[in-house]
């Protein structure tokens, strides 16, 4: 299948627009993206019902990036991202129960309820978070790539960041060393066109993020096309193992606001949002492919979506049953090795513990 938009390359030859796929892969894409969409919509409701507290950044609209990336790489490759991490975690093999439990601060969460929305991890599948400090995950990702090269793993790291973070100094510092040492690091700019409420052109002198690496090659990808993302990530992995870092700019879109405190409609028009939904939606694109190639009937796809809704509802019900973390968990996971260090509660004469 041909990608709908050609890749635009900087300092490298772009991969072919012809992407190999299979009926079962397309169905998996459809199912995975529908599940993510449903999960984020449910998180929105839970937040409004005050069952999720604090910050919560939703990924709906950007699903093709998480799903397409997984299709192009393996779980031995690493991914590290910022705070919009629910779907990336699911893509790495996390479960809905872990997601909703973490969002509600329960024991069965992927970080035992201690991290919350922004701090999802799944180290055994190469998912290193889940970070709350804008942009700081990119140098960490380059560090992961250093470890991979050092231990001759023949694997790569995808470090994701947004168009807002793309203008930070630390990205260029990390990229410089990554390029100097030929690290297998792929910097993935998920360009959803707004850094919080600021349009990219108001924040960046050059919003052509795939070119911003100057001496580092880059590729602009239609991030709403899961097949294009898959092709690009496969290409990026091969390139990075041979030549060092590469920047992938994923042209994508978030339907929700930046976080739950942003209605998302003050700095962009409703027409813009509905226009993207109608013309570029990643799920609808795959639905169309499945229908036009007679792989699935309309009804089957509706059933898949119904099934996703059911799975999400069941996971939420189960997560609600999950207990809050034990009070003693306040003093766990501070050190790997506590060395008998004493730690204190707010009133040290009332609450104290020896760190494990």
């Amino acid at each position, binding site marked *: 299948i041909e990608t709908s938009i050609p890749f635009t390359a900087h300092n490298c030859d772009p991969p072919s627009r012809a992407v190999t796929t299979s009926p079962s892969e397309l169905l998996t894409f459809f199912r995975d993206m529908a599940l993510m969409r449903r999960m984020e919509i449910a998180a929105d409701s839970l937040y409004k019902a005050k069952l999720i507290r604090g910050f919560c950044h939703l990924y709906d609209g950007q699903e093709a990036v998480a799903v397409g990336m997984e299709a192009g790489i393996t779980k031995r490759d690493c991914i590290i991202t910022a705070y919009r991490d629910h779907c990336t975690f699911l893509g790495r093999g996390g479960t809905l129960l872990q997601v909703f439990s973490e969002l509600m601060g329960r024991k069965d969460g992927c970080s035992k309820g201690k991290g919350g929305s922004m701090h999802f991890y799944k180290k055994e599948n190469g998912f290193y978070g889940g970070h709350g*400090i804008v942009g700081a995950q990119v140098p960490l990702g380059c560090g992961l790539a250093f470890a991979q090269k050092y231990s001759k793993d023949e694997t790569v790291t995808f470090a994701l960041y947004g168009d807002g973070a793309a203008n930070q100094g630390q990205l260029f510092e990390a990229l410089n060393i990554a390029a100097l040492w030929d690290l297998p690091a792929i910097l993935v700019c998920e360009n959803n066109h707004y850094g919080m409420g600021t349009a990219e052109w108001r924040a960046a002198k050059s919003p052509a993020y795939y070119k911003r690496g100057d001496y580092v090659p880059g590729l602009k990808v239609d991030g709403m096309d899961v097949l294009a993302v898959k092709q690009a990530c496969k290409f990026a992995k091969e390139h990075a193992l041979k030549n060092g870092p590469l920047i992938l700019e994923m042209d994508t879109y978030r339907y929700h606001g930046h976080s739950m405190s942003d209605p998302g409609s003050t700095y962009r028009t409703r027409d813009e949002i509905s226009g993207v939904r109608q013309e570029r939606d990643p799920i609808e694109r795959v639905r169309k492919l499945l229908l036009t190639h007679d792989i699935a009937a309309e009804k089957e796809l509706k059933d898949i979506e119904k099934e996703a809704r059911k799975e999400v509802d069941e996971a939420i019900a189960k997560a609600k049953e999950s207990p809050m973390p034990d009070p003693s968990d306040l003093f766990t996971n501070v050190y790997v090795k506590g060395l008998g260090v004493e730690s204190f*509660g707010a*009133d040290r004469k009332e609450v104290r513990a020896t760190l494990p």
Partner: protein
Amino acid sequence: MSAGQISVPIVFRGPNGAAAGVGAQHSQCYASWYASCPGLKVLTPYSSEDARGLLKAAIRDPDPVVFLENELLYGESFPVSAEVLDSSFCLPIGKAKIEREGKDVTITAYSKMVGYALKAAEALAKEGISAEVINLRSIRPLDRSTINTSVRKTNRLVTVEEGFPQHGVGAEICTSVIEESFGYLDAPVERIAGADVPMPYAANLERMAVPQVEDIVRAAKRACHRSVPLAAAA
């Protein structure tokens, strides 16, 4: 290093301290970090009066000032006097404010914790303990004189802060009182601070990680020998 040739008249203002439900990377008090640096001034407003008077003072000051606001106080209103509303109103840097006078125990606090200390003082009053609440306003310079004068009067001290206890603001205040007013103390200094752990997200753990009014009340009663410490009771 420029022998005074270059000055840095800048104000850094931003939210500081624990917010609600945002985890370890967005809930931390940096007062003691910044305040340990010579050359910086660190201000911590509590009320509307503080915010107005101190921000103006910070902007007018010729040195770098770190202005630490508390996100959870943004939505709170405070009564203000006509004097505060006057365009000439400004506050001095380095001067604490006695928010409530008392004679039995001194409670020092800054930012959001001033409100908690005042609530604790009210609860203590019901039990016959008269607490003096000092709103530090300025962490550096620290108003050692107001603190020591108060402790020499009450002979007891409870320090309250949202930040981590080790090398914290309370530790500095305690040292100052030991250095200057040791002979006046009738009880060990009590320290209430954020728990010595990264901030957890879960609501039950988060509550344990930040000081509560009852922690302040308990510590004040201990200082006044009105309660039995846990170790002795066990």
